[in-house]
């Protein structure tokens, strides 16, 4: 991973020095193990702060929304797909971006690791496909594949889909992954079982909306749950309001979600809201052969209409 970091610093330094960009958006080392902090760098002297490792799970596309500067941005596969979505949804212009592509090898799930270690984790190191955690006088070595985020484990777009320059050689994409095993499990349930499944899934929700705010797709100037004149959705923990929020948000992401995992990663009470978005991703794929954020030249299926649409209701 240090090779990635070195290359990123080099590219970032060059871009700033040559005034190709006004700022670089990337990650700096966090104050906790397994955490890095999104940051911007404007001065070439500060590029040494930039880091890259398996703790860069935050989707940086979130940080370019409506910005006016010329930006150099570090983008792994999912970030690049969200940049594509941002560009086709007019949240940033392609010309404003210099995309430093990062072939990604999966991001580690800090909660999964914390759950496997009895002591408080003090340091986490990675060497190839091994993760070594230490703390409280004990240490343990884990295989990275066992502790990466669930969305990374089923990702088939690890390489950036658009970039101006790469920080490393492209990696081999994962093949033969079963992307929708969990969705099929839910689909196979009876209505009563589904009801119970979703009720339990959402029971811990505290309505903080961290999932929405972490999501690079959620850039509406005023979210429907924040509409106050008139108010659309109740503010309490009433289960109907909580479901309304999650269902509507998920549908709003249909055909746009890249399964970057930002929502699940941000949730303070560990709700897997990907149970919703994954189903809609599957539907978009099966109904329209569509995967979000792969091309700048094709409009997403839910914002296009063709006169020969086979459905009667729309004619």
């Amino acid at each position, binding site marked *: 991973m240090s090779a990635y970091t070195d290359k990123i610093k080099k590219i970032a330094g060059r871009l700033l020095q040559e005034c190709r960009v006004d700022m670089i958006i990337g990650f700096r080392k966090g104050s906790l193990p397994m955490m890095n902090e*999104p*940051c*911007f760098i404007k001065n070439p002297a500060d590029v040494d702060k930039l880091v890259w490792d398996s703790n860069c799970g935050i989707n940086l596309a979130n940080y370019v929304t409506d910005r006016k500067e010329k930006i150099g941005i570090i983008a792994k596969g999912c970030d690049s797909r969200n940049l594509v979505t941002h560009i086709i949804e007019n949240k940033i212009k392609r010309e404003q971006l210099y995309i430093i592509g990062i072939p990604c090898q999966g991001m580690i799930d800090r*909660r999964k690791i914390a759950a496997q270690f009895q002591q*408080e984790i003090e340091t986490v190191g990675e060497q190839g496909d091994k993760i070594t955690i230490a703390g409280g006088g004990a240490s343990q070595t884990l295989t990275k594949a066992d502790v990466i985020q669930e969305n990374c484990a089923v990702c088939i777009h690890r390489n950036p889909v658009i970039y101006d320059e790469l920080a490393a050689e492209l990696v081999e994409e994962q093949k033969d992954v079963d992307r929708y095993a969990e969705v099929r499990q839910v689909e196979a349930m009876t209505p009563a079982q589904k009801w119970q499944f979703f009720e339990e899934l959402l029971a811990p929700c*505290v309505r903080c909306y961290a999932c929405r*705010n972490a999501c690079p797709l959620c850039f509406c100037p005023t979210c429907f749950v*924040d509409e106050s004149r008139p108010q659309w959705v109740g503010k309490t*923990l009433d289960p109907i309001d909580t479901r309304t929020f999650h269902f509507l948000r998920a549908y709003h992401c249909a055909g746009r979600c890249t399964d970057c995992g930002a929502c699940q990663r*941000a949730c303070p009470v560990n709700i897997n809201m990907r149970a919703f978005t994954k189903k809609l991703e599957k539907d978009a794929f099966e109904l329209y052969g569509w995967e979000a954020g792969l091309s700048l030249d094709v409009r997403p299926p839910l914002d296009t209409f063709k006169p020969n649409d086979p459905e009667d209701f729309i004619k």
Partner: protein
Amino acid sequence: MKVLKIDKKDWAGGIQKAHKAYRLYGPVQVKDKGFSEFQALGPDAMPDMTATDTRLSPKSIAFPPQEVMMVFTTDENSELCNQMQVPQKDYAPRAIIGIRPYDAAAFLLVKKNFDTPEYRDPYWCDAYEACTFIGLAVNTPSALDFSTSTKSGPFDENGLDVLLVDTGNHYLAKILTDKGAAFAKSAAWETEAGAAGEKQIAELKASAEKQIRATVAFDNIQRQSIMSLYEADFWEEVAFACINCGTCTYVCPTCWCFDIQDETHAKCGKRMKTWDSCMYPLFTIHTTGHNPRGTKVQRVRQRFMHKLKYFLDKYEDGIMCVGCGRCIRSCPVNIDIRKVCDIMNSYSAGADTCALKK
């Protein structure tokens, strides 16, 4: 006050007895989640005294995420038509078992806001006064615990009625108030530990405080003017990573902001108090549509200025933070209040200008 010794073999029996006189709350492992929360304990449930920390703080015991303040009807056939009624509330004695000293200290900070000479929030105050705080000292502070830098600490007694100390096979219970003595009586804790008990507590306390590695300082924040910190040039950088998710305010034991909402159904309605957060644009938007804190940077600045400057100046009794470290652990983008406090404390207004003039 005296120190009692409780054999762990008798612990469950004592809690069972206390159940008869109190509604008990304590940390409970949340199924399949890998974290604990404070919950009301059922008749047979025991508090999980091994839980290192709870995900959310126990502030919800006096400040629930949502609470009915009043009910009303617009039904003209009812004699209560168009009258606000306070619903029946249960303020029977409750006890929070295993609350950590920093969380108890947080109740005292929140009290400054809800119980003032001018105003008294009856919902929070009545619930608070119904509580007996049975604290559990922190023998092994986490790496994020900086409670000794605030007005708390791993063995701090402020805000507690009893301080329990885990010594392996026993708990030592230091009785701090009459409320604490009444709880000990209801749990039939009687065996006195004497001077040896006090000595053991002092030793464990010294060892715990020595283990704390994280610190913050705010002496210089106190000396700075509000406007110089407010207008400082570091806020854009501090706020950049923030996604305004509000998680920090939800997990914080000292954040007390709330919203009031009327929920109506047909002709009946409830006036609700719900948690709110300064991280949300909706928090400050005016009916005109104008928002005085319309940007992320303004909101992030507000959170830290309130905790580390406005509160400090207003009460002259420390910062609005007890050093539990929850916001640091829960922040999805690693915004660290210790770092921000350090940036604010080491800031010196006009330093750059002076350097330029030279």
